[in-house]
């Protein structure tokens, strides 16, 4: 997947992008609800339309090809991203990265800890806004004060989180065992290679 992302960043093939979107759709079918399909297709309409129009009307060279290439590329990235976020919970994704890609556990659990703070973050931002209202100030989502105060609070939280993780035996250079494992069976590799092979065929077939 990472390889495919790099590849479409440099190839000039519209059909390679379309191929990727189609492939991702097939992979996503079991998890897709009508709402999610609509979300995936229509959320990016404005940036894609913007990209298409700016390259079509202000581009140089083959404007038809460039505008379609870049707008389909956005879709391809969105669908590649959807594969990651829609098909597995963040716990499993990070667990798999730790076990299969040997990403440092400090990064994996730091990220996971941060994700687990999201409900508290929402609650605290609400509190900051409400505290400001009580003093007659309206803080919008883009007010610098919110960010300043959020940074102050997150510094304290990060310290608390580090202490709690350490108290439950977590430290950097340790060897960890795994309760849930995320093995990559051989057929997974075979499917990945086949899909990538297909991408090469489409990308270099001269279809444009």
């Amino acid at each position, binding site marked *: 997947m990472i390889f495919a992302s790099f590849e479409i960043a440099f190839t000039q093939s519209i059909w390679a992008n379309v191929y990727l979107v189609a492939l991702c759709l097939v992979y996503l079918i079991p998890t897709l609800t009508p709402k999610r399909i609509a979300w995936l297709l229509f959320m990016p309409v404005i940036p894609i339309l913007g990209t298409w129009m700016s390259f079509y009307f202000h581009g140089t060279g083959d404007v038809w090809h460039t505008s379609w290439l870049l707008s389909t590329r956005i879709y391809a990235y969105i669908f590649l991203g959807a594969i990651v976020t829609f098909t597995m919970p963040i716990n499993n994704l990070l667990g798999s990265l730790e076990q299969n890609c040997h990403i440092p556990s400090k990064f994996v659990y730091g990220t996971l800890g941060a994700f687990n703070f999201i409900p508290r973050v929402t609650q605290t931002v609400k*509190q900051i806004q*409400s505290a400001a209202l009580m003093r007659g100030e309206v803080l919008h989502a883009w007010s610098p004060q919110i960010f300043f105060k959020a940074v102050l609070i997150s510094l304290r939280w990060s310290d608390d989180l580090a202490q709690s993780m350490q108290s439950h035996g977590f430290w950097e250079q340790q060897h960890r065992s795994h*309760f849930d494992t995320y093995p990559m069976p051989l057929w997974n590799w075979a499917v990945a290679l086949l899909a990538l092979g297909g991408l090469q065929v489409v990308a270099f077939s001269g279809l444009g």
Partner: protein
Amino acid sequence: MSKELSAKNLTFSYEADSPKILDNVNLIIQANTFNILYGPSGSGKSTLMKVLYGLYPEFAGTIQSGQVLIDAQDLADLKPGAIVKKIAFLFQNPLNQFAMTTVDLEFKFTLENLALPKADMAQRIKTALAQLHITDLRYRKIDTLSGGELQRVALAITLAMDSQFIILDEPFASVDLTSRQQLLALLKDLQVNHGKTILLADHDLSGYADLVDHLYQFDQGKVQEIADFSVVFAKFQHFDQQRRFPLPISADDCVLNFKDLSYGTGESPLVQNANLPLLQGKMVLLTGANGSGKSTLFKTLTRLHPFSGTIYYQQEEIRKIRPKQYAQKVALIFQNAQMQYLRLTLQEELDLSLAHAHHPEIWTPAVISDQLQALHLKGLEDHIVYQLSGGQQKKLQILEMLIVGTPVLLLDEPLAGLDMASIQVVLPMIATMAAKQQQTIIMISHQLTGVLNFFDYHLALADKTLSYQEVLAYQSIN
């Protein structure tokens, strides 16, 4: 090899030149004993607990001299992974104990850190949960658990880790009385039947008389073992006091009114069907056990917490008032002073409050100057508010919220962390200015000595019921 946790000539401070929090502490905790360390709030008990566990100096401060030994090894020479196999730690705020989202995931995270094989992990999780009778909590989300349940889960995890020593830092600060008694019985059981060693810090000694093997007093950085602790426990009994309050007679002049008000946390209700008025221009003291839902009531009244039933502000349902307008009627002094700050310097903070004051005519430059003088904040006008001391921050926060002068002002533990001299300035100031501005004050305070004379009514939260009470029974320790 002796099984014990000890501190030898231990001196600790947060900065090299700041006051010593621990001053030549000597302490020996022997295996399989039940130990209590008591001392006033804010005296540095938490610091000692964290130094004995090795979180400090790693996360803050420096050991000026001396050492901590576990089983005759210097704690400073041990890796964190080796320490947790010997010592477990329960935090004051149980939420700070957990990094994962569910009980199950937290157990697995912890046991994976100890590099245990899968079968062993599964067995330990089952056994630990069963021992504390919380098997049904296994797949619950952390943020739906009550304070008592959280501490029970935290304790179960220490059992699964199989550490010999369990250090608990004010573990009952957000736990209700019943849960506290159950947890204490569990701790005693762990000591007697499972060979654990308990070291628990608390400012309140009630309920410990029959459990404790060694009692230590912590005061001004020094630890002293109390040989005849029956005397200390007896003293705690001695100062039981009572105080009578009038009950509100009519609800004619009410500013807030509750109709069937109910709220809770997670799945547990805190208050059910409260029906009562809050009267205009009165000062009300709100009491209730830890974890009973006092702070949550304030969050409910400021619409930061969901509730069922109806709350009226002068006959108008508060859900129908726009947030910006409502915030000008009912304001909260948060426990955390920094939550309230919006500017950088003390003077800018005061100016902001003055710009939005409901009664600006009262707050003349002379009045403000007098108040700053009384609060010992004079001369600090150009200081950055975040760099003031904890006590100064709290005093500034109270003053600036009084200046705003909303018709209802809620104060959540405003006196915690203030010394007696400051309390004697702050309370009369609140009473005088609130009277001038016709404000209704509701205050949560654990500090009751020297405080009660200022209040008109006593509102109690107990057994999920909110009601005005005539009698307030309390203990004065000092």
